[in-house]
């Protein structure tokens, strides 16, 4: 795998490990996200399974050296199945004092810290809020520390290639990456190719300097190896399903899923969106797909985005609007119009921590109420949730299917963690998906716009341009039998019931809820939705190995809920809902099924940890046992 001869020689001395968590942390301007994504690519190509967690500040360029300017990228990789980006890191690369300060608590005891001593000076200590040099006050006593003047070593190789001091220093992330590549026996070539592609043509000296820094870091690893303390590691290939893989980020997979869904529906798409963190990458991905007939519209605001998407659906395209919590709040009136006029629409909500601006770059699952309940009047709509980057593709297709088949807006919930995280993805073949072509109404015979399919209750979709079907629809209540304005009391009752029943009926058209791990019935089930899939799944499997009777259920369908879910939940003695909010799914499940569900809730802006779920299971099952 490793291209260099030295690497192969070093293989003999390498320690075998099953999985490792590495965290790269530095200043916003240090290129940590690039370092992390390059490391991810090489690791994927190396045959490991992996999960990543880019953790960056809201400010684009916070003052250099401050703790709030720290940008980090965590990756968990191994020869076994990797389900989360890892609770604690084994290795922390700290490019400056602030990065050390912010990330040290995330390092396991005995873990390795790699420090760039070149940036460890009085000025940076002050900016990071250290009173004394953290290397001398004993705070690193429980860790292994590798102190390297990365800044100087980078300058030594990069400056002679014609770069200014400042430019040359920017290559230190590549030096560091080279070192970590050596530690884990990764191939340099993909990153060299990437650097050539990115800078080769425009700025060959920048490409050369970065490549030189990468190689120098790698060579440094080989040299210090002699000391024995820092022997490299080797991590075997993960045994994963056969097939063709790529790395995929959640927002990218979601965008592609929307495209795939629109193709399966036989429609072209219009995405209308307004820039907002962390949803914008969906807009960016789709903006480059015009050849597929995808139109993107960057609207003047969130409301206009929702409205333009509705206008497009009215005119016969698949209207999609994407945003994040605050933006979705603004769209709610428009979503109500789509519910009332029964037009298809996919509303993507990449959730973030709130309320209001909250923590825009941090993750949370706190828009479940907003999605299920958050509109004026009785305004039901289906709500689907994405559990991982790769799953975003599948769930987006399902959202399009439901929206077009049932003539309804659908809320598709992702979150900031999924949007930015990457994982190896078994690339699907579009030919394996069953098409669900939309049939526009064209027959004028007996037509009115609210004629319903007796089975799905979906109304006829007649688009402007169709002869003989000219009609008027709008936000005022529509007559059940003609679609004309109606203020009749019975009609409003009937239409409200019909809209609700149409959505509830979707439960018959979605799969029954499966148990991810474990079996129906037993002492406890942990129920989750969205991006907590990984930690819950790993925790439940660990606890089962340790002899605990616990299962895992993970919901894709938040509304309507799967038809067997009530019975399934009642088959367990205890139901624990683990979610990154203060108990929103718990409220919903209690209300729907009257089950005494308990909650594990976390809203720190950080992903849920495996150990947190394990502790919650342990304490509850131990208490139950004691009570027996």
């Amino acid at each position, binding site marked *: 795998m490793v291209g260099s001869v030295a690497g192969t020689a070093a293989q003999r001395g390498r320690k075998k490990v099953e999985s490792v968590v590495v965290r790269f942390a530095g200043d916003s301007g240090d290129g940590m996200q690039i370092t992390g994504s390059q490391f991810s*690519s090489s690791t*994927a*190509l190396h045959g490991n399974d992996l999960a990543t967690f880019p953790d960056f500040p809201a400010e684009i360029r916070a003052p250099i050296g401050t703790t709030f300017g720290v940008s980090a990228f965590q990756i968990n990789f191994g020869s076994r199945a990797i389900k989360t980006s890892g609770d604690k890191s084994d290795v922390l690369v700290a490019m400056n004092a602030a990065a050390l300060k912010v990330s040290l608590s995330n390092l396991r005891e005995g873990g390795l810290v790699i420090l760039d001593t070149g940036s460890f000076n009085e000025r940076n200590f002050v900016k990071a809020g250290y009173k004394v040099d953290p290397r001398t006050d004993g705070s690193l006593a429980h860790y292994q520390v590798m102190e390297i003047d990365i800044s100087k070593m980078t300058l030594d190789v990069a400056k002679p290639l014609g770069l200014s001091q400042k430019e040359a220093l920017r290559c230190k992330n590549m030096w560091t990456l080279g070192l970590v590549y050596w530690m884990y026996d990764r191939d340099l070539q*993909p990153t060299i190719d990437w650097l050539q592609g990115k800078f080769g043509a425009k700025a060959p000296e920048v490409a050369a300097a970065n490549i030189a820094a990468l190689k120098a870091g790698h060579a440094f690893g080989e040299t210090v190896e002699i000391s024995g303390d820092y022997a490299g590691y080797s991590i075997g*290939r993960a045994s*994963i399903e056969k*097939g*063709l*893989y*790529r*790395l995929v980020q959640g927002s990218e997979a979601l965008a*592609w899923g929307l*495209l795939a869904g629109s*193709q399966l529906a036989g429609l072209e798409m*219009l995405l*209308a969106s307004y820039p907002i963190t962390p949803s914008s990458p969906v807009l960016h991905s789709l903006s480059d797909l*015009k*050849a*597929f*007939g995808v*139109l993107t*519209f960057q*609207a*003047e*605001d969130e*409301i*206009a985005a929702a*409205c*333009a*998407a*509705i*206008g*497009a*659906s*009215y*005119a*016969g*395209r698949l209207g999609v609007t994407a945003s994040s919590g605050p933006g979705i709040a603004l769209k709610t*009136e*428009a979503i*109500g*119009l789509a519910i009332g006029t029964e037009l298809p629409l996919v509303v993507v909500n990449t959730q973030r921590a709130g309320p209001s601006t909250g923590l825009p770059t941090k993750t949370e699952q706190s828009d479940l109420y907003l999605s299920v309940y958050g509109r004026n009047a009785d305004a039901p709509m289906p709500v689907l949730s994405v559990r991982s980057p790769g799953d975003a593709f599948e769930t987006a297709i399902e959202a399009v299917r439901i929206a077009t088949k049932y003539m309804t807006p659908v809320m598709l919930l992702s979150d900031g963690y999924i949007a930015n995280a990457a994982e190896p993805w078994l*690339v*699907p*073949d*579009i*030919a394996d998906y069953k098409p669900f072509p939309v049939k526009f109404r064209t027959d004028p015979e007996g037509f009115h716009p609210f004629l319903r399919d007796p089975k799905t209750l979906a109304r006829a979709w007649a688009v*402007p*341009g*169709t*002869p*003989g079907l*000219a009609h*008027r*629809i*709008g*936000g*005022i209540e529509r007559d059940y039998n003609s679609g*004309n*304005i109606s203020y009749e009391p019975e009609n409003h009752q009937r239409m409200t019931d019909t809209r609700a029943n149409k959505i509830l009926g979707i439960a018959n058209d979605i799969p029954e809820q499966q148990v991810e791990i474990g079996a129906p019935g037993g002492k406890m089930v942990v129920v989750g939705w969205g991006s907590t899939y990984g930690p819950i799944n790993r925790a439940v499997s660990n606890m089962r190995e340790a002899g605990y009777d616990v299962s895992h259920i993970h919901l894709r369908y938040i509304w309507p809920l799967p038809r067997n879910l009530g019975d399934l939940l009642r088959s367990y003695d205890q139901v624990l809902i683990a979610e990154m909010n203060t108990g929103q799914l718990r409220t919903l499940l209690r209300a729907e099924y009257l089950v005494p569900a308990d909650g594990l809730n976390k809203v720190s802006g950080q992903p849920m940890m495996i150990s947190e779920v394990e502790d919650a299971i342990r304490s509850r099952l131990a208490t139950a046992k004691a009570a027996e």
Partner: protein
Amino acid sequence: MNAPAKLTPDDFATDQEVRWCPGCGDYAILKAVHKTLPELGATHENTVFVSGIGCAARFPYYINTYGFHTIHGRAAAIATGVKLANPELNVWVVGGDGDSLSIGGNHLFHLLRRNVDVQYLMFNNEIYGLTKGQFSPTSRVGTKSPSTPQGSVDRPANGLRFALGAGARFVGRAIDIQQANLGALLKRAHGHKGASFVEILQNCIVYNDDVFAHITDKKVAADAQILVEDGKPLLFGKDKSKGLRLNVKTLALEMVTLGEGGVGLDDILVHDEKNRVLGGLLADLEAPFPVALGVIYCDPAESYEAAVWGQMAQAKAKNPKPDINKLLRAGNVWTVE
């Protein structure tokens, strides 16, 4: 196949009972639109009326084409989606002054600046009718209403100035009951490729009756209105004896009488539709000046949806057989065996 029978104004009426107050100016506008559509060669299927909320916004229910009565202020945004989705459609947007300039001001601004090819008809009655008579963004200072018992203190918005400021390429004004002028303006707006902004002074007989009487009253009309025509001198008054002259020192228009103080026809400004500065001066005119009517400004440029579809055509030409499987496999991939 037989040539399609020529449509009549009645063909564009619907079976829905019109629910405006008797005597409302909206009836006159509806009549003009019913009459104009067949003259434009419009069809039921390719015409779409989109509206927001308000008395004016009920309009689509009374026109036998496709119609979408949406939410307050957002008709411009929804119409943008409709036109983008299918540029073949002939899209009209209808809104009142509150719908267009208050809650929907943002969307109207962007529709005009983007130059989406729709006709935007703003029925201006200087009041909120549907919500029972509150002052509106075009109400004059001192308007007494349920929410301004002592008279409003807000300075009113000028719809035409707003539209010009937003970069609209077509701006015109008409009066509800002047059927011929209104019809002619609607035709020009329809013929204009790009966003056309048409303000229609509309009398709300219930909450703001006669608010335009100082312009429309037969006794004063000749002096209180000026119907502008491209290439023609800006004349008004009985026998067209008065005109507008530019005072080059103040860069303002002034009213002059032909033959008085040595004023000849040569002194009178000639209307030039493509002159945006002149459009602005005309848009500003209010009593004691005559109010400008007709096509105030018209200077076409590429419309938004045409540019967007042009980019899509380019992308399709570059990649005529796009394949999603290929897209998913682009970049770094590897095989696990």
